[in-house]
């Protein structure tokens, strides 16, 4: 919660003009402070807040060992969408994606607009399997919710990259962490779009279960 309280006039003047001006400035400052962290078009947090928040979450991982995940997403063929339907429709599409996704994330998650048609969602305290599930949910839910525009129904899809910061402290800084997610996003685009990519080798291989060949021997008793 923002503290919108202002200090009382030190001279206890009920009709103090300095006090009035101060109160007004304080309110304006609070508004600007909040606005400076919000992307006006989508209502998501902006790039500046992304860097601050991600820095804090990485520090939390360093202290607790609990992983932080980020999902980086890019709307597929967005340039073509703009060329076909116009920039106003493009802006509506960005707003629609943000609105659809806001319902799919937890209250502790931090949705940010990275720039252009790219989004980064910070998932505090989330490991890779959990983050993959979130990314896939975002992708699937958007494909189920086309943008309605003047009787037309315009399908939207996204490509997503997932990266995690764990107690192995994989990335030296916020920028490197984001870049890792960006590389998986690029891979998702390369592989044909409308999909989620991540570091497969970071998932625990399921090879520890007892296989059917092993069961054959054990069940021979």
């Amino acid at each position, binding site marked *: 919660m923002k503290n919108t309280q202002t200090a009382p006039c030190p001279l206890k003047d009920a009709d103090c003009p300095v006090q009035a001006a101060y109160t007004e400035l304080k309110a304006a400052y609070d508004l600007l402070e909040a606005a400076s962290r919000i992307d006006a078009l989508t209502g998501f947090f902006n790039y500046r807040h992304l860097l601050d928040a991600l820095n804090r979450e990485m520090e939390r991982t360093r202290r607790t*060992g609990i992983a932080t995940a980020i999902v980086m997403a890019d709307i597929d063929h967005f340039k073509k969408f703009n060329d076909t339907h116009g920039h106003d429709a493009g802006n509506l599409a960005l707003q629609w994606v943000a609105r659809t996704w806001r319902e799919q994330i937890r209250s502790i998650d931090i949705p940010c607009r990275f720039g252009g048609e790219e989004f980064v969602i910070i998932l505090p305290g989330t490991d890779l399997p959990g983050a993959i599930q979130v990314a896939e949910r975002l992708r699937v839910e958007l494909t189920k919710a086309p943008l309605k525009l003047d009787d037309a129904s315009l399908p939207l899809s996204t490509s997503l990259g997932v990266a995690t910061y764990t107690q192995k402290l994989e990335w030296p800084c916020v920028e490197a962490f984001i870049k890792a997610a960006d590389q998986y996003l690029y891979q998702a685009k390369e592989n044909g779009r409308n999909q989620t990519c991540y570091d497969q080798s970071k998932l625990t291989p399921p090879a520890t279960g007892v296989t059917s060949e*092993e069961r054959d021997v054990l069940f*021979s*008793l």
Partner: protein
Amino acid sequence: MKPTGQAPATVSITSGKGGVGKTSLAVNLAFALADMHRKVLLVDGDLGLANVDVMLRLKPAKTIEDVLLQGQDPHCALTRISDHLAVLPGSSGVPAMVAPGSEKRSQLTDFLTCVMAGFDVVLLDTAAGIGDDVMWFNTFARHTVIVVSPEPTSLTDAYAVIKILAGQYGRNDFKLVLNFIENAEQGRALFQTLHQAAQRFLNLDPKLLGTVVRDPKVNQAVIAQTPFLHNTPGCPAAASVRQLARAVGALAADPAV
């Protein structure tokens, strides 16, 4: 009593599956080793649902929980049973103890290292399952004893535990104790099956440490909350456990291991 200058032999007792007689075996094995004048510490490694105290009708004043969660003196948590036997009771019905985090685990290492000085053998009875706490006790101990009964579920779970400890924790030395065995042929088949799977798929050579025969006296002793080793010292299971104790005692006597 032998001099106790060297570090104690730490032996974890685990099974994957519950209900294979693991805790009863650990308790009686501890008594058998104490009867051999070994100084034995029996640790109840089931941090959430401790049972060693119940098996012995103990009402421990302090448990592992009091040390880890209440910050009490480690030594006050030991319950002395005899000159040669002490129990470190676990906590019963304390969910906070089930999955100790990394900080609690490092405290547990310090705690156990501190209280086990002066003992010859430390038996760590783990919980069932393959949780982090179970794996922790198994990697803390120098020797891993896997208890397996002739049930296919026990066999499969015992194999799964071995596979995890080998694959994820780099353990390669396993000792098998067969429990609830009807006859020699059944024991041989059980050992061979498990050994064959471990050898073929995991390239391991688990050793047979001992076999405990099926004996109705075991269950009667559990209900009477007394070790069968003392309740019915002449019963077949008691003879099996005394033989097993000699094998475990040999682990402790060998300075190379």
